[in-house]
């Protein structure tokens, strides 16, 4: 069994885990990140894309609000390419509780959140599609943050700085000696091979799966899982993020992101991290909320619905004071102090907006344990994009129309303008071809056709170089996942799109014959 050791092993390649590894790299700590599947397959990859202004938590959680506000400024500086500066509006409708807006305004001012009142005229000029039933409006500096882009850039930067990101490696067992975790046994999800990685400190950043990871060390974490459902609409009806200025509730935010617009979310307790099934009532609710803000919303085409799981830590259940509860938003537990198992700590909660701050606190803790003095510098060092020009649709289109375009470089995904060269460069940089990972890296298949045309083309491109892999099974499972994401949206144009995809796959290509049915 291969084995090696490092200083820090991080479990979970979401924003938190990768953020920790990046921070550690910058402080010269030897770090390895492992994930049971791929980058952005958990909560980070299933979020609505909102870079918070802080306004959302001004009343209920001022500490979080302040953290969001300052992290917002920092992220704009260090990862500008993943952020679209849409700005945000808080809107109180005439039907909303009358005093709330005033109370909220005072709370924001007290914390120091940047905001400006906007006249209804100004709002209408900026966003003509919005309802006329607005009573008050405030501009905040929220933005749209592409988490795929953020996570890919983090992973790229970590690797470049000497850290390792090992994917499809599930922690199977912790090796514990004298009440100290000394190594982890990992099993490859691809070929079931195992390996050992020894480390001085293990950080459990597995998000909704962190209770399962902790359980491997015999530690119980009182984690509850809350499911939030979102819908991406095929059109951007506003160019500004729209929040409802009302007590925190479901369906209160619309985020324009790339060529689409996302409405979220719901909040439903579920039993486990894998319980991502969507109820039709959630879809109905979100569509109705959208219609309330933007008349005609429900008549436009929904593209896709998905759910993410918020891991919520319940400190009261835990009953031990030794936890470092920085705010209600995120928690770091040193299992040496709380459970007598040294060398392992768990971090969870928080928001994507505050991932850097959480990472900083975790690595401060790690540094103390490792007796390293280096200060955190993630607030000032930019995170390099993996690719500078591609990701944004408008950049891609500009490039396509420019004279530099290489005529042999076909557009493989017409919805998102993903070219053959991008897919080839993904293939070169990935030991293992996976359409869903290609999607997260390039946005292939995320547009209106939901991969009906491009998935087969992309598979063909990978076919010669990844001969040994079962690419047809991967294709089948990919188109099935795309289908599942639209199966609650069976009306209007989206219903027609689904019927079209199925017609192409099963009557023109007969995929079912060669793919082993995707199961």
């Amino acid at each position, binding site marked *: 069994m291969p084995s090696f050791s490092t200083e820090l092993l991080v479990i979970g390649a979401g924003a938190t885990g990768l953020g920790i590894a990046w921070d550690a790299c910058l402080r010269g700590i030897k770090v390895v990140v492992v994930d049971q599947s791929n980058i952005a397959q958990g909560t980070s990859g299933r979020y609505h894309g909102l870079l918070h202004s802080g306004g959302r938590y001004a009343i209920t959680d001022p500490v979080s609000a302040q953290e969001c506000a300052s992290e917002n400024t920092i992220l704009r500086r260090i990862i500008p390419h993943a952020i679209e500066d849409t700005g945000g509006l808080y809107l109180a409708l005439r039907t909303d509780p009358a005093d709330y807006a005033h109370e909220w305004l005072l709370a924001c001012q007290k914390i120091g959140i940047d905001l400006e009142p906007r006249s209804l005229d100004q709002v209408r000029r900026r966003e003509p599609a919005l309802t006329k039933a607005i009573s008050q409006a405030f501009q905040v500096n929220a933005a749209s943050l592409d988490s795929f882009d953020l996570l890919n850039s983090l992973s790229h930067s970590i690797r470049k700085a000497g850290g390792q990101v090992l994917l499809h490696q599930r922690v199977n067992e912790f090796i514990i000696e004298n009440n100290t975790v000394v190594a982890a046994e990992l099993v490859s999800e691809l070929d079931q091979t195992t390996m050992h990685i020894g480390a001085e400190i293990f950080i459990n950043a597995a998000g909704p799966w962190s209770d399962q990871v902790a359980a491997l060390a015999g530690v119980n974490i009182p984690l509850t899982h809350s499911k939030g459902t979102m819908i991406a609409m095929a059109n951007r009806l506003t160019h500004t993020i729209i929040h409802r200025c009302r007590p925190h509730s479901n369906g209160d935010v619309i985020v324009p992101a790339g060529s689409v617009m996302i409405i979220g979310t719901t909040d439903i307790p579920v039993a486990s991290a894998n319980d991502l099934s969507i109820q039709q009532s959630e879809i109905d609710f979100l569509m109705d909320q959208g219609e309330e803000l933007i008349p005609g919303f429900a008549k436009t085409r929904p593209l896709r619905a998905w759910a993410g799981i918020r891991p919520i830590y319940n400190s009261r259940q835990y009953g031990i004071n030794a936890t470092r509860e920085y705010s209600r938003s995120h928690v770091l537990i040193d299992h040496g102090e709380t459970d007598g198992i040294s060398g392992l700590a768990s971090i969870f909660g928080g928001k994507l907006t505050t991932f850097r701050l959480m990472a900083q606190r975790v690595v401060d803790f790690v540094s103390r344990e490792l007796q390293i003095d280096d200060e955190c510098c993630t607030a000032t060092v930019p995170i390099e994009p993996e690719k500078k020009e591609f990701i944004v649709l408008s950049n891609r289109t500009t490039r396509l129309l420019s004279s530099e375009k290489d005529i042999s470089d076909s557009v493989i995904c017409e919805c998102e303008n993903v070219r053959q060269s991008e897919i080839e460069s993904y293939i070169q940089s990935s030991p293992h071809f996976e359409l869903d990972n290609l999607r997260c890296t390039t946005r292939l298949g995320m547009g209106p056709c939901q991969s009906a045309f491009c998935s087969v083309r992309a598979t063909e491109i990978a076919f010669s170089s990844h001969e040994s892999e079962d690419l047809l099974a991967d294709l089948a499972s990919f188109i099935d996942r795309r289908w599942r994401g639209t199966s609650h949206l069976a*009306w209007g144009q989206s219903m027609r799109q689904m*019927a079209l995809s199925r*017609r192409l796959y099963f009557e023109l290509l007969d995929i079912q014959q*060669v793919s082993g049915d995707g199961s």
Partner: protein
Amino acid sequence: MTDILIIGAGLSGLFASILAAKVNADVTLVSAGHGGLSISHGCIDVWSKATPSRSFSRIRKKHPYRIAGKRALDIAIAAFEEITHDASYPFSGSLSRQLFIPTAIGALHCTALAPYSLAHSEITNTTPIAIGSIAGLRDCFPEMLVRNLRANGYAVERSIPLSLPGSEPCRDLYSTDLAYRFDDSSFREQIAQLWKPRLSGIHCLGLPAVLGLRQPHQVFQSFQELLGIKLFEIPTPPPSLPGLRLEKVLFNTAIHFGVNIILGSSATGLIDRSQKLKRVSGIKLHAANSSRHLKARNVILATGGFLHGGLIARRDGSIHESVFNLPLDYSENRPALLAPSIFDEQPYEKHGVRVNSQMQPLDLKGDPVYENLFAAGGIIAGADRQSEGSRQGIDLATAQRAVEAALE
């Protein structure tokens, strides 16, 4: 006032219009957009599970085939073969055996009739073949094609990358771009010269279906002669030439027999309330910024299912027939239209209007809704066309019955 008004320009609508016009009826065909042929493989699937002739009696009673009857299917297939033969676009195959056509990824598609170039009779799985791929054409998949065809027992020797002449700047190629070029004989000669040296030792070559659109059979034969080897074509994803060719053949035939064609206009049904009997009087046609009435003695509804707009699903879970708001064959409150996996059988496939043996849409009691309204093709309920492999057979048989009934 027209004798027969047909709504929909897919296979069933076009075929019905030709059948009616051939016996000198006054026929008008209207359509909101392109029909389904542009996204089809251009073959006639009748029944993929076994040969249709043998299994017909075992099909459920409420299935469109049983309602239309075996006789209608036989007559329709013969009429279809005659139409395509007369248009110099011959089909191979018959109802008594199954044809297997390689798809773009090398699966084998089971069908009854296929255009000559797809179902080249001399190609069997013992014929040594090569697969040609064309540089720049995204929708041909030589790697997958070769691997899967071999797995299906074909004697594929190798794949040969072929390029286009010159270095002229081009946009990304679709199959239609190439088909237009292949219609031109000088382009074919140029290509033949370029490709011939690369094809030495090859006896039989499979190419993506790009060999011409306007006179495809002639293009195919002449290109085969130029290369001096046997060719066969493999349908690509849309734009799919075999489907487009069939569409063109049917449109031209319809025009030849005097069908009055109105494209780009959607329709709302008009009901005749002046008489005791329940009848339709025609449709209101909606074009850009205007609408007008079109009167008809008989109307054939060939608007297709969900994909083509004949059926509309709403957000509240209800489904509707788009022209006459006919009662539909589903009764539960909010039945799921979709099953969770794309590989599952999908409930939406079976929805539609229920018809009697005259192809008249029925109300929930089982009586005809309107005595002069008939249905054909994908709008008719009761068949899972995808898993049965029965789509085009149902289109033809029900169109045949609908025209017979409308002309009675």
